[in-house]
């Protein structure tokens, strides 16, 4: 995008007041709609220069924009208008007063209730969109806006499809979105609503633990992690996470779409169960989940947790490397409920004799040992021996 374009004062019927931010695809402006006399967010997307690509790009953009514009849900950003001018496609949408989830995550991990409340709203919005035939394809913290009074909005619906063609150019560069892709997305497979569920699972995991789930220096590493890494349950990093929530995250992050939640509503249902469980276990903190914005202000509390969880993050990274090397089925965590300390000492630091005993390779026992222990075999052998003796005596006397 040229400098002259970035300094434009008008786009379509909208008067540009200020620049709100820049992304890989374009710029977001604060703009004024003189016709309806309201302030909007104007998102611009640069169209490809090549005529053929541009036509296809443009067609897809308008198709997606029409589909998204039909969505009317409290958790989905409202699209007012869209159009094209000077090789620049734009979308006018409601201007939200809040902060993106990634900015919130940068301050430190969220409380469990806060994270579940956000995920539940996002899942609800996704379910509505999926029912309307729209898949987001790019659920990530940067596309989730936290609003006052604990409300949440999903942004950039359908835009991801336009970005997919750019993936090929991203090899070797710093990665953003691919960290939140589903295995079928990185594998180039057919996508359905379950791809958004996987991405939301990653977001929920990161909200609960404060750790980045899939990451790497290049696209290949990230794709390998997404496709193969079995993450440890969030409760291993954040002990406050209840077992039920571990299961929800695990279900959302299943590598095979068939094993994942079939639709976002199932996830909403389970997240609501989690919220109820959290509410019953911590009635004194009930107000916390209802106020994402007020939780943002609890800097001291968040700061303390950040220290603890950052320490855990290193552990997660180590675990991730181990997991990447080994078949996930080849490895099981030690139970936290049942004590294995004594057995662990025997395996990790055995006495020499114990080590020899434990390391011996099983072999079939010898005949004498077998006769000593196997009574049936001993009786058979004895009987046959006696029979031979008697028969010999009969024959040779």
């Amino acid at each position, binding site marked *: 995008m040229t400098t002259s374009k970035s300094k434009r004062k008008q786009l379509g019927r909208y008067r540009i007041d200020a620049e709100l931010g820049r992304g890989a695809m374009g710029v977001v402006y604060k703009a004024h709609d003189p016709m309806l006399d309201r302030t909007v967010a104007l998102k611009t997307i640069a169209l490809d220069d090549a005529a053929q690509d541009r036509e296809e790009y443009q067609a897809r953009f308008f198709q997606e924009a029409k589909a998204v514009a039909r969505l009317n849900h409290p958790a989905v950003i409202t699209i007012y208008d869209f159009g094209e001018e000077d090789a620049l496609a734009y979308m006018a949408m409601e201007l939200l007063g809040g902060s993106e989830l990634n900015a919130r995550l940068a301050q430190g991990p969220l409380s469990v209730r806060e994270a579940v409340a956000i995920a539940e709203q996002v899942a609800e919005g996704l379910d509505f969109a999926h029912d309307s035939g729209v898949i987001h394809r790019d659920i990530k913290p940067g596309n989730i806006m936290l609003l006052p009074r604990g409300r949440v909005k999903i942004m950039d619906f359908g835009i991801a499809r336009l970005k997919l063609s750019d993936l090929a150019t991203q090899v070797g560069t710093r990665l953003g979105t691919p960290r939140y892709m589903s295995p079928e997305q990185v594998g180039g497979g057919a996508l359905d609503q379950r791809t958004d569920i996987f991405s939301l699972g990653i977001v929920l995991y990161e909200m609960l633990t404060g750790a980045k789930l899939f990451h790497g220096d290049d696209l290949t590493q990230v794709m390998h992690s997404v496709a193969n890494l079995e993450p*440890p349950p969030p409760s291993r990093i954040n002990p406050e996470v209840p*077992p039920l929530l571990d299961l*929800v995250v*695990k*279900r959302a992050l299943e590598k095979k779409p068939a*094993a994942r939640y079939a639709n976002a509503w*199932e996830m909403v249902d389970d997240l609501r*169960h989690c919220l109820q469980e959290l509410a019953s276990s911590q009635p004194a903190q009930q107000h916390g989940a209802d106020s994402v914005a007020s939780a943002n202000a609890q800097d001291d509390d968040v700061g303390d947790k950040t220290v603890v969880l950052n*320490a*855990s993050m290193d*552990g*997660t990274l*180590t*675990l991730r490397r181990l997991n990447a090397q080994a*078949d996930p*089925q*080849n*490895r*099981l*965590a*030690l*139970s*936290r*409920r*049942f*004590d*294995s300390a004594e*057995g*662990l000492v025997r*395996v990790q630091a*055995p006495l*020499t004799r114990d*080590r020899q*005993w*434990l*390391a*011996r*390779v*099983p*072999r*079939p*026992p010898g005949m004498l040992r*077998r006769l000593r*222990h*196997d*009574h*049936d*075999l001993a*009786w*058979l052998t004895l*009987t*046959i021996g006696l*029979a031979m003796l*008697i*028969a*010999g*005596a*009969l024959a*040779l*006397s």
Partner: protein
Amino acid sequence: MSEVQDLPPLSSVVLLRLRDYARRPVAEQARLSAQLETALAVLLPDIAARERLVLEGSGVAAVAVLGKATAALDFAERALRANEAGLGLSIGIDHGPVEVTGDASGNALAGDGVATAAVLATFAAETGLLVSKNFYTALAQSSPGAESVLVPAGGFSDAGLRTYQAFRVDREAPRRRRRRFIIAAAAVIFALSAAAVALRVGAPDRPRPLAPYVDRAVSYFGSYVFDRLMRFVLDHQQE
């Protein structure tokens, strides 16, 4: 450092897998996980604390029994009986190398022992319990004869085309084996006796090197039996 010190320890890994766990609603998963934990809490005290490591995963629990294959099989069979309450367990057992891998989020157990038990548990949907050839051998070594409860269940191939020779538990198998032994012993006795009699009848001029010993033994045994018999008769008459 001796060669043995480089070898990883071997243990009998009993892996309990909740069938169709991934497909169930999360609330049911939570309920089943809690039931599995309860079952473990009931069953585990029978294995000494120093002889076991308890592992957990998603819809999976495992116990690595150190050194005692019989204890592992007993545990698995009792877990299978607990399964009759409707837990829906598939159990796989292998005796193989294991290694502790540790990190900040906790210790874990890895190795072929865990992997093979996991694969067998997935194949055990119908039989409930499958054990590997390695475990069969370990059981035979640990307690010769105890392996007679294991009968071949066929060969299985996993997604990576690795093949596994599996065995299932059949508590009737030792009884059938004993019956086979009795029949075999009777057949051998009959065959040897028949051969000896045939030899005696068919070859009167055969060499008889044992004749003096046998005659002496028979006469001694005969007189002993005659004495005992006479004494019994006399005692009986006096009464």
